[in-house]
């Protein structure tokens, strides 16, 4: 399923600052797309618009040929799954219970998850190596574990598209590596992934497309090896930006 962003503009209510101005882009099926940009450049706003949590002031978002605002909420949840920056808002629900919540769009109002669906939870937990967390409360998990659990919940929703708002922001290097590797594997299965990040290296690691936002406009939308160029990034992140090869010290990163 492809996503088309057409003339998209957005301003927060009761403010005059335009957050996003006339965005146009076409996101192809089965690609990973990293939204890069400074704080306040509109990354989160764009992801939330794509998730239908905000209504555009102008322009439209299309999932295939369907206008997002005309897709009913239940249908939307079968098209995309969304993870917010805070990953989960509650802390006293068991992980295994939380993971079943993604099935709600396939169940009638009086139904609860079937045995097959509960088996799927166990299967995905094994696959993502979080089976030890299943009987814990969400509040007992570390930031990284929470993030992985919320991605697992997204996958159980079984949508062709995943929208993730800064999934690595709260994570240490090890967990960043884990989450990014996971997203790369997911994309290999043909799903479309759109995530926002503060780190241009992530897009290189994922070998993804980059949507580079600058002051609410798309500065560039291309493959990461074309966007993550020192002269392009300096326009956004400032002139002190340099390549690791130009550094006097050795920088750490993770292997591809």
């Amino acid at each position: 399923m492809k996503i088309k962003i057409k003339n998209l503009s957005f301003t927060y209510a009761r403010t005059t600052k335009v957050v996003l101005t006339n965005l146009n882009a076409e996101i192809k099926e089965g690609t990973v797309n990293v939204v890069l940009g400074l704080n306040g450049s509109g990354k989160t706003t764009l992801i939330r618009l794509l998730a239908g949590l905000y209504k555009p002031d102008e322009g439209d978002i299309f999932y295939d040929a369907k206008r997002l605002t005309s897709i009913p909420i239940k249908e939307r949840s079968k098209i995309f799954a969304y993870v917010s920056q805070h990953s989960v808002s509650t802390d006293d629900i068991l992980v295994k219970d939380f993971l079943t919540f993604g099935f709600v769009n396939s169940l009638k109002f009086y139904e609860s998850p079937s045995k097959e669906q509960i088996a799927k939870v166990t299967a995905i937990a094994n696959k993502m190596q979080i089976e030890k967390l299943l009987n814990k409360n969400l509040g007992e998990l570390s930031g990284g574990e929470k993030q992985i659990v919320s991605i697992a919940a997204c996958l159980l929703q079984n949508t062709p598209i995943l929208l993730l708002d800064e999934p690595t922001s709260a994570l240490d290097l090890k967990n960043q590596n884990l989450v990014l590797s996971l997203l790369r594997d997911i994309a290999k299965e043909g799903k479309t992934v759109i995530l926002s990040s503060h780190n241009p290296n992530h897009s290189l690691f994922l070998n993804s497309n980059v949507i580079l936002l600058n002051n609410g406009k798309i500065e560039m939308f291309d493959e990461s090896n074309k966007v993550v160029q020192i002269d392009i990034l300096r326009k956004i992140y400032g002139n002190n930006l340099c390549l690791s090869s130009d550094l006097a010290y050795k920088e750490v990163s993770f292997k591809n």
Partner: protein
Amino acid sequence: MNKKTIIVLITSILAFAIIFIAALLIGRYPISIDDFFNAVFTSDAEYQIERSVILNLRLPRTIMAGLAGIGLSLSGLLYQEIFQNKLVSPDLLGVSTGASVGASIAIVLGLSSIFISFLAFIVGIITVMLTVLIAKLFKNGSSTILLLSGIIVAGFMSSILSYIKYLANPETTLASITYWMMGSFENSTMNQIYILFPVILISTIILLVLSWRINIVSLGKEEAQTKGINYKYYRYLIIFIATLLTSSVVAFNGTISWIGLVIPHIVRLMVGRNTRRTIPLCITFGGVFMIIVDILSRSFTDSEIPLSAVTGLFGTVIFVAILLYRRRTFDEN
């Protein structure tokens, strides 16, 4: 449902049955089990007094206590889930204060008890509608605004209540208002139960049917919506049911504090936070707790102790115990 929940559920259903029978036996006129069976299952004239005590006095108030316990614990749980706040109780959106205003107007006007209940119910519902309406003015849709609006409207209603109390005759109507607000099952009749029972039954059935789905609504707007739930619709439905439960219970029995706060906490502590498990248990635990409170309120002293005094006494002690227990588990983590 897991094994633990099923065990707790079956145990509490048995406890419900035992406490229910016990409530018919215990009181200022004690009845032995033999006399109980003779009075209920035979038409022997010798047991006429026992029969009358059981069927006319104790049965209506025990059923009423059970229904009130179920209604208040369920609505407490619903409010806590929807507002994602474990410290809210059923009167959050002003329903109890509103009902008190309705009842006190009826008392001051000298209306009969059925009109007291009717006005209490109506004003209780109107108060919640007012709360929702004021929250809507902010066009924000967040639960915090609704909560704030509830505090504002409850404040408004309680000042009206003060005014009515000020106007009331201190010897007669003021005493009645104060007594009404402390809650009692003393004047329960089967006719009241015929009205209340269907309300509680239908609400309970709806909640049991939706019990799993309420989990997702309680995640909040964003998460519920992206998982495919029509959040607004379900939130208003649940607020409506919770309000209906509280206002119909309060209308007949006066305000009863603490139970809506304490029972959901006890239940969550036992089986965790999952409405598929907590809703059925709130029904049994709420009923049992309220019947015990009623037994205590009518057998501790020669005169009846108001319900809120008993629920408050036990509620606060139990609540401190829960918080202490929770603190211990928090420390261990």
